């Protein structure tokens, strides 16, 4: 059993500040849509870096904050406790109830990284660490108090000695320095005897106090020693911290320089860099060691302060550490669970390109350096061949087997590749086994495999085929072979698959994804509507910049439920498939071509036609914008097509109406033959909906709206085309029925239909 990737969160990676947790589609195919430069590829690269642990300066954001990438995985109930040895009863209980596990990879300034378990498991481990930390803090405070007391006693002792000397000196001014020294030796006791009575009394009090202080200090000797060691460790830690601060600044400077230069550099050739890196790593290790020594020493001092012997304290310290500290840290568990992480691979375009020819020997010996090795290996995997197949002694039987295999492979490939060259001329993939002739002196007689991509007209080497065919073949073989070989789950990251493919072939890419999704999880980016399955909108994550006009702004990811707030450009692939201007709805010679201001209006008019059941012969042609309508009129006129322009009451269309009347239509033309102008209260198509229907069926919100719907859309900068295409989708799929619209909307719809009917 392995873990299945179900969500991710990427922080501080290229344009991404924080994606928040983003769930992947539960059916194993997730599609990232968005404009160029929105950050889609960064998400794929982020996930790849989570797996490999490697990053370079170019992924750093301008503030040089280091990346942090988390992945959440689904696991079976009880699996975590099964793979965690001796977790302890509390941790075991937690692990056995968890069905997800979170791993987070953090990078350090030297670009090394740690992988830790995060989420609920780390919260539990942290709570244990916190308990240990609280205990240590308590002991530390007590120890510092003790050290303070010992220091106070020591200075009092110095004070007593000096007071005693003072008394002697004052009574025997001539005694001199040497006398004071002798004062503290028993043999010099006579000096005290000669003191006046009050001084003698004072002196004896000091002697008694001195004895008491000395006795107390002697009792605290071990604690005093512990205090000294504590001081030394503290100084060591401070010094290491200071050094690490310096080194981190140096590393940051270096990253900054590299980011600005925007060029990779071989860091191993830079001795200064190597030295800084080495120092940083050594100091980090030293710090970890000092920290751990300090913890043990504080605990040890605690027991000393309780009056235990050093040996006893040592033993109790070890026991306490076992008790308070879990045997596992977040890092240890992170490393452990990461072993079960699916392989996260980036699909390499043309990485599996079939060679024209490859020596069998190179395949058998696994010579990865030879051109096309990977593709040939994938090919043999697909053909379910191992190398013993070629040891068949009879060349006739071998040739027959190869012939059969070629047929099977072609049939399988054609299941996915629908395109034909000409009418029924589908391409076939083939391989042949042959031997070098005597012309190849060093290889003469050695076997090689030769590959062909055939159609009935031509037999060409793979490299002679079009870019699209080569890409698809490479893609097909790589994915199918990976799925067949995989013993461990795999997440395949595919950046813009099939750019060079025809629309139908792009749909074939989706078929390959569907075919392997049970064995390989796919996350891909696309701009193409043909690579988005409209019936599986849950697969979509929309990626866009926070500020659409600023490429330096951060990347935002919107899940399927929040797509309505995505920008129109981000949603282009969706708009193109939801109520798409179908091929049958293009320019028509038999119908009236009704030009409307944009795709949003196209969707709404299509919706009105559906709701009212209008049967007029009309083909709706969306312009890209009001300003393009004159151009479209010119085209229609040039082609001699019957057309009309539908104009709403907004200022731009009112001006256009004037323009068209003055410039476009010939004198004598009745502009009524070309123009359908709505009542001025309909500023745009969406104003044909009552406010209530606009809220309920388009916006799906409940706030009060007191301006025309079109004005509201503009003010709020809503993705008009997307929202109206969603409405059309809802109406077409019966989620919204004609009876769901209110009387006012129906009245407006009837009004428009009458306008269209009246147009001859």
């Amino acid at each position: 059993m392995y873990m299945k990737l179900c969500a991710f969160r990427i922080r501080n990676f290229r344009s991404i500040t924080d994606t928040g947790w983003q769930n992947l589609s539960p059916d194993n195919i997730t599609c990232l849509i968005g404009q160029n430069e929105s950050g889609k590829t960064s998400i794929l690269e982020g996930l790849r870096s989570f797996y490999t642990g490697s990053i370079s300066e170019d992924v750093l954001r301008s503030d040089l904050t280091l990346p942090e990438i988390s992945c959440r995985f689904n696991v079976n109930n009880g699996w975590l406790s099964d793979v965690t040895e001796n977790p302890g009863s509390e941790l075991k209980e937690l692990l056995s109830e968890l069905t997800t596990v979170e791993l987070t990879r953090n990078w350090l300034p030297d670009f090394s990284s740690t992988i830790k378990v995060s989420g609920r498991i780390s919260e539990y481990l942290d709570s244990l660490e916190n308990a240990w930390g609280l205990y240590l803090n308590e002991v530390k405070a007590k120890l510092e108090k003790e050290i303070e007391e010992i220091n106070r006693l020591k200075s009092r002792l110095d004070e007593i000695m000096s007071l005693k000397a003072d008394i002697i000196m004052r009574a025997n001014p001539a005694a001199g320095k040497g006398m004071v020294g002798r004062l503290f030796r028993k043999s010099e006791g006579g000096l005290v005897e000669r003191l006046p009575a009050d001084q003698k009394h004072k002196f004896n009090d000091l002697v008694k106090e001195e004895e008491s202080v000395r006795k107390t200090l002697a009792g605290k000797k071990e604690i005093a020693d512990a205090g000294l060691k504590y001081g030394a460790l503290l100084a060591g830690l401070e010094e290491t911290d200071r050094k690490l601060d310096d080194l981190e600044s140096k590393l940051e400077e270096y990253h900054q320089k590299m980011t600005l230069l925007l060029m990779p550099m071989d860091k191993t050739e830079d001795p200064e860099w190597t030295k800084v890196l080495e120092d940083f790593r050594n100091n980090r290790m030293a710090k970890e060691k000092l920290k751990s020594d300090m913890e043990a020493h504080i605990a040890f001092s605690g027991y000393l302060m309780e009056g235990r012997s050093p040996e006893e304290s040592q033993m109790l310290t070890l026991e306490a550490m076992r008790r308070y500290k879990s045997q596992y840290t977040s890092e240890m568990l992170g490393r452990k669970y990461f072993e079960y992480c699916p392989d996260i691979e980036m699909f390499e375009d043309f990485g599996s390109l079939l060679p024209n020819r490859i020596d069998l020997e190179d395949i058998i010996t696994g010579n990865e350096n030879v051109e096309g090795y990977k593709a040939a290996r994938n090919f043999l995997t697909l053909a379910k061949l191992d190398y013993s197949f070629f040891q068949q002694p009879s060349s006739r039987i071998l040739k027959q087997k190869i012939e059969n295999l070629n047929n099977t492979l072609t049939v399988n490939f054609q299941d996915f590749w629908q395109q034909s060259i000409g009418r029924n001329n589908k391409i076939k993939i083939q391989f042949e086994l042959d031997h070098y002739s005597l012309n190849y002196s060093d290889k003469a007689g050695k076997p090689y495999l030769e590959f062909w991509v055939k159609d009935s007209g031509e037999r060409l080497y793979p490299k002679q085929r079009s870019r699209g065919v080569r890409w698809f073949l490479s893609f097909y073989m790589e994915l199918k072979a990976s799925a067949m070989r995989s013993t461990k789950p795999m997440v395949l990251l595919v950046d813009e698959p099939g750019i060079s493919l025809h629309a139908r072939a792009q749909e074939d890419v989706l078929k390959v994804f569907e075919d392997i999704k049970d064995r390989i999880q796919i996350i891909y980016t696309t701009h193409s509507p043909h690579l988005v399955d409209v019936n599986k909108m849950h697969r979509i994550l929309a990626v866009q910049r926070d500020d659409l006009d600023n490429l330096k702004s951060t990347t935002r990811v919107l899940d399927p439920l929040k797509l309505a707030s995505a920008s129109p450009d981000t949603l282009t692939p969706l708009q193109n498939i939801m109520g798409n201007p179908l091929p049958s709805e293009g320019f028509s010679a038999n119908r009236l071509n009704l030009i409307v201001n944009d795709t949003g209006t196209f969707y709404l008019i299509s919706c009105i036609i559906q709701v009212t059941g209008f049967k007029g012969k009309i083909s709706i042609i969306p312009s890209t914008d009001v300003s393009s309508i004159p151009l479209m009129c010119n085209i229609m006129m040039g082609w001699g097509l019957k057309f009309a322009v539908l104009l709403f009451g907004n200022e731009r269309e009112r001006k256009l109406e004037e323009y068209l009347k003055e410039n476009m239509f010939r004198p004598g033309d009745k502009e009524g033959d070309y123009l359908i102008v709505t009542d001025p209260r309909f500023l745009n198509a969406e104003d044909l909906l009552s406010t209530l229907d606009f809220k309920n069926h388009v916006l799906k919100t409940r706030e009060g709206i007191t301006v025309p719907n079109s004005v509201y859309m503009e003010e709020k900068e809503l993705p008009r085309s997307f929202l109206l295409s969603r409405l059309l989708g809802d109406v077409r799929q019966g989620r919204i029925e004609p009876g769901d619209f209110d009387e006012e909307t129906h009245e407006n719809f009837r009004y428009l239909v009458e306008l269209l009917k009246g147009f001859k």
Partner: protein
Amino acid sequence: MHGESTYQSEMLAKAGLQAFDEHLSSLRYAGMIQHALMPDEETLSGILKDYFILFLPRDIVSGDFYYAFSNREYLCVAAGDCTGHGVPGALLSILGISFLNEIMQSEKCMKANRVLNMMRERVMKALHQTGEKSGTKDSIDIALCIVSLKTGEMQYAGANRPLVMIRNGELTEYKPDLMTIGLAPVEERAFKNNYIGTRPGDMFYLFSDGFPDQFGEESNKKLKNKNFRKILETASSLTMMKDQKAFLENSFFEWRGKMPQVDDVLIFGFKL
């Protein structure tokens, strides 16, 4: 010491009374403003042939309000009842009146239900009602009629408040939509338009729920709608609308007796 404390109490009482007086006079002034926002006798008699307004606020200011508007094509009358009474109700009633004014003056193609739909949008926006937890739950119940001056056709739309028509002594009640002008519990729906062909002499009554909800001294029970209709039917037998008002007013006070008034009372009666 004792003297000082008495002095302080007296001063405090004096200050309290003064504050109360100030509140009262400002409320009275607010009441005057509220009245001024509603159509005066001159306006109403210019719009309607014969009418009466029985308006008995429970407090100085009221949550009930009436409205009338006319242009060359139609006349519009309405009686509203805002949630609560006193100051909160009055504030909402002022919003209601100004929204009605704004809608009536801007709309060309007038429909009673459309006016209520538009009014609801304005109230929801003003009170930040979005269906989320934030925002108030306040709302306005209202009955609104629009009469075409050309055809005599009446449109009625109601938000929780009905319209009563008495023709030849027979009472017909037009039921309202059971929705208020404000956030609905689940989802807002469009108000329904009722078209009523009118005849000369037809009498119409719009009213708040203050009268039927009033507790009577003798029974200690609410009057209820059924009895209120009987009173209306009886009143309608009086030809002059001002006589009907006097009858209804007397009936109210008679029913109420010494019981306190529970809510604002408004009846807007008019004859076509």
